[in-house]
């Protein structure tokens, strides 16, 4: 079919808008990447867009990667992500399976009991007092337990389990399988798509979490990476970092570059994992939204 002039104009304009949007999305990250390896003095004199690094240096990366706070932040985040996500997925899967079984009398009442918490909650302060009262301040428990189940995730998983044909379960029951066998040998193996999505959602949540850490933790050796970042990026205390490193005061210039480098160091893992996770994104939203 031949395209009319209108069509061509439409398609071109569309492509231009989308290209501009993509550039606007990516450029801030490119800017940071270029700036992180630029020479501090040249960068401070530079104004405007950065299209390539100016005057390569890698010193900032050395400083950041040797910083004890960044390293312990990384380590803590990895612990919180792995422990937290494992517990999240196990507890959510058990509950979702139990709530997906037909013929269990109380399951709908329990479902109501759960859904209610989506609409109403005690709020920040009572939760904080609870965690404090349970003696969980400065412990991994405070990072993992208050968000053990995401209710939306539970609903997604339950709906997915309900979609698995009942005949499979019935024939297993005839062969003498109990609920545990059915869950672990039949339901879970058939649910890998939704489980990978859960791992993605919970995992990203733990990786990015900082607020709980900021109110429940006050020992800096327990801080997750994101909280360490706050001190460097938002509270603007790169000086602390230079002091911990025993580096002489190199002025405002170096601390600017250190900021960019810190952003890179904290973002690169996401960029590396991103291509592998990407195929789950759309699937995750679909499972969550269409069936939710």
């Amino acid at each position, binding site marked *: 079919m031949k395209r009319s002039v209108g069509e061509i104009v439409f398609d071109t304009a569309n492509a231009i808008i989308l290209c501009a949007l993509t550039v606007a999305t990516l450029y801030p990250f490119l800017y940071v990447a270029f700036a992180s390896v630029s020479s501090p003095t040249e960068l401070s004199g530079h104004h405007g867009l950065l299209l390539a690094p100016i005057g390569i240096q890698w010193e900032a990366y050395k400083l950041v990667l040797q910083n004890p706070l960044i390293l312990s932040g990384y380590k803590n985040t990895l612990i919180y992500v792995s422990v937290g996500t494992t517990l999240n997925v196990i507890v959510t899967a058990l509950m979702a399976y139990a709530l997906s079984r037909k013929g269990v009398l109380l399951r709908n009442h329990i479902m109501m009991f759960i*859904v209610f918490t989506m609409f109403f909650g005690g709020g920040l302060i009572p939760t904080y007092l609870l965690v404090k009262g349970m003696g969980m301040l400065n412990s991994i428990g405070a990072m993992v337990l208050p968000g053990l189940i995401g209710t939306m995730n539970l609903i997604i998983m339950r709906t997915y389990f309900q979609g698995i044909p009942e005949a499979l379960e019935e024939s297993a029951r005839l062969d003498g399988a109990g609920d545990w066998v059915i869950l672990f040998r039949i339901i879970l193996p058939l649910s890998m798509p939704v489980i990978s999505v859960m791992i993605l959602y919970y995992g990203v949540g733990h990786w990015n979490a900082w607020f709980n850490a900021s109110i429940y933790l006050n020992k800096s050796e327990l801080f997750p990476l994101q909280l360490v970042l*706050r001190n460097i990026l938002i509270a603007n205390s790169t000086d602390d970092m230079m002091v911990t490193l025993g580096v002489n005061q190199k002025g405002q210039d170096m601390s600017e570059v250190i900021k960019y480098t810190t952003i890179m160091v904290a973002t690169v893992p996401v960029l590396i994992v991103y291509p592998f996770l990407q195929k789950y994104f759309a699937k995750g939203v679909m499972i969550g939204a269409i069936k939710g």
Partner: protein
Amino acid sequence: MEITRKDASAEAPGSRSSLAAGIDILRKDLLRNKYIYLMMLPGFLYYIVFHYIPMYGATIAFKQFTPAAGIWDSPWVGFKHFQDFFKSYYFWRIIKNTLLINLYSLLFGFPAPILLALLLNEVRKMWFKKTVQTLTYLPHFVSVMIICGLIVDFTSKNGLINDIIVWFGGTRDNLLMKAELFRTIFVSSGIWQEIGWGSIIYLAALSGIDQELYDAANIDGAGRFRQILSVTLPGIMPTIIILLILRIGHMMDVGFEKIILLYNPSTYETADVISSFVYRKGIVDANYSYSSAIGLFNSLINFVLLIGANKLSKKFSDSSLW
């Protein structure tokens, strides 16, 4: 789309016979499905401990809570904290800020992913479409801390945005210190971060539209633009409405972490919202009862908004949450 499922197998026990018979049925069920209930146990305890106990804890909004006395033994003071809050200088300020920030986010942030989805839907080259999609999702996965770090840096006096302003003949300023710009920065950075991710669901809805409708529109002489208006948009309308309801239900509590990270005393005037105020009064100033009262007030508004939005949607369209 439904959130709760009604199921015939779960009639209330005891509705037709006596209470004793009901208890008997329940006991048999607990026994027969004991492993099911065992599986529920950790999750059930989680909801009791981390959701229902804090709801009980929220009673400190009506008490004069002191940590030494504890929640139970602190004396009741009725609505004192609510009255203090309603009368305080901050009341109207944070209500106004909360509403305005959310209204702007809704007004500009909500349609943005729809527009992107419509544009992407018109792209015929798959590789181009896929590339744009993949790249625009990316910021969604970057932590709020990094995003705020970027915002702080780019809006600083020597930052990139100021460089651009100077090109256009403006003057340098620390943009985050200007109260009148806070909402603009907050809303536009939010769009930047979430536009791609938000478009996924609309693209899914778009792929479900019957191709024949387009063919028919084509025969009727509708151009591409006309087709978007008459076929595509109506096709995704139910999805738009459901997402709009969900969004309105959470009108009052969006973007709290980002606000805490970005605001400062010189922008409190436009940036301080209910949740950041709760955080400051409660966690920072340890004013527990007062802060809980405000938190409770916030939850109530949210609840009412959600119910209201759902009612409206039921009335004006076929889609609703329950």
